[in-house]
């Protein structure tokens, strides 16, 4: 059908020119992409640059790089002195790492059970998980808070980890199931003939094979958890359990007029994500372009 469409198109005389304007075309493509790259990065760069400048330089020369006379770390000193940034950072780290670990482990186990074995209700459970991809867990917040109150988990990192596991599982089960289906039957059958236990088959044969998919799931799970504001705000707003996103949100709320401190706190919040992104960007892009999320 597509070929027919292509054939039906009028033959224009333009095609004879296609070789020549190639360079011009290429330049245009680069110009547009470069312009948009500036649009995408400019705001981030402005914040990073100015967080290292004196207040006077921030206002007088907002786009200039810090030089010897305008360089200062006073903003960072203030942030570190007036807030518990180290605590926030640690909270975010531990919540993200723990959630990620359990999403991957439990997600892979569930995906394996749902794809490998035939049992009553398997289809229903798979559908239940699939629903979670589209329906945001946030809509259950009223009852989640009630549940955490009942379990005496309010203002604990555990409450966040539990919610994020539940939030991450649907996508993990979906992506990992797709991947597990591609594992050749012979591998498993051979192991079963040798009387290898189901657990060993999963942990020693299957898990290593699905590692690339696990990395993709990890990136997709990690980012929303690290960046989340809603659940930290509702489940763990206490000073000692705040995550970095909530911490920055509250810190800036208090120090709106202290530009040095505001810019520095933004930089402190942006930097770890950018580093993480640059480390994992290849994995993320591979995951996206492999069509992992369809």
């Amino acid at each position, binding site marked *: 059908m597509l070929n027919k469409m292509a054939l039906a198109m009028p*033959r224009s005389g333009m095609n004879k020119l296609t070789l020549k304007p190639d360079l011009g075309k290429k330049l245009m493509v680069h110009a547009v992409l470069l312009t948009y*790259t500036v649009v*995408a990065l400019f705001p981030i760069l402005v914040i990073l640059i100015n967080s290292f400048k004196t207040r006077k330089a921030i206002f007088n020369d907002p786009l200039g790089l810090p030089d010897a006379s305008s360089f200062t770390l006073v903003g960072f000193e203030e942030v570190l002195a007036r807030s518990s940034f180290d605590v926030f950072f640690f909270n975010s780290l531990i919540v993200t790492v723990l959630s990620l670990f359990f999403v991957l482990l439990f997600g892979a186990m569930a995906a394996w059970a749902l794809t490998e074995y035939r049992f009553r209700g398997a289809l229903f459970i798979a559908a239940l998980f699939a629903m979670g991809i*589209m329906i945001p867990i946030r*809509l259950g917040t009223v009852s989640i808070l009630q549940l955490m109150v009942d379990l005496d988990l309010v203002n604990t990192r555990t409450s966040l980890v539990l919610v994020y596991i539940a939030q991450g*599982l649907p996508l993990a089960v979906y992506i990992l199931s797709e991947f597990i289906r591609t594992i050749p039957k012979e591998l498993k059958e051979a192991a079963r003939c040798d009387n290898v236990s189901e657990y060993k088959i999963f942990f020693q044969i299957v898990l290593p094979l699905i590692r690339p998919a696990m990395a993709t799931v990890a990136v997709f799970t990690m980012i929303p958890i690290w*960046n989340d504001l809603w659940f930290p705000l509702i489940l763990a707003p206490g000073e000692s359990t705040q995550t970095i996103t909530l911490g*920055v*949100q509250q810190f800036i709320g208090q120090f709106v007029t202290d530009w040095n401190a505001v810019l520095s706190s933004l930089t402190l919040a942006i930097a770890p994500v950018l580093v993480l992104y640059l480390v994992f960007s290849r994995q993320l*892009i591979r995951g996206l372009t492999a069509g992992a999320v369809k």
Partner: protein
Amino acid sequence: MMTHSDIRKPFPWHILVFLAPGLLIYLTVSVYPLLDTLRLGFFSEDKSGATFFVGMQNYANLLFSEVWSEPFWNALKNNLMFFVIHMLLQNPIGLLLALLLSSPRLRLSGTYRTLLFMPTMLSVVIVGFVWQLLLSPLWGISEDFMYNIGLGDYFDAWLGKEGTALVTLSLISVWQFVGIPMMLIYAALLNIPEDLNDAGVVDGANSWQIFWNIKLPLLLPTISMVSILTFVANFNAFELIYAVKGALAGPNFSSDIMGTLFYRTFFGFQLQQGSPTMGAAVATLMFLIILIGVAIYLFFVQRRIQRFQL
């Protein structure tokens, strides 16, 4: 239990062991709270905190009463606006960038891809503050920029005005999330076989014709998936408005969307007390809106498109 009496096959414990931990957490922390929220929407609370059944009363209040209906319809209208702006800008810009990125033998395409996706990685909260600073008349970065390109007179404190706050916030969100349609469409473009393009070129089609007649039809499933993802994300949004405008979604609720309405209803603000049951009712309506969107996508759009592809 019955495992001992089962002669033919032992109970498949391993299935349970594999499935139980994930399923248990998912059921208790996600499925049960969602269902319980739907239930709570039919209840009300007295001063002691005891709940009692009120049927459709909460929904009647939200949709028709004097106190509740105005904020509700306002939030819904704003949320629709928020979504429409994303559809009109975010997805077309994403499509354009993806097309450019996928041009054959493009140098630095990997670098562009990585850099263009960067804003998407940041927390919405951070992005909100960054733009608040950039647009602040106090700092003057945007104002100077506008003067430099000769449009200085048009500069305004957009985030602070009733007429422009919501549009400005939507544009900030578009700026941040344009990377998602870009990447997904780019991935789909890579999967289009070269032969199809070549066939088009041989038949004398120009780039525009190739895009319109070959690429776009093949991209439709991806574009519709991106649209439903945008829809769900937009009707579930909260952070950006909260970070920039606070729970009151000012000025004068002009930037209020379903997420901020839900938060205020649930937790209360200033003089108004929060109500879990009213909050649950708002969440239920959000749930219905999202469900309708997803259903339309699954039953009408996706099905039709797949048939078209064949």
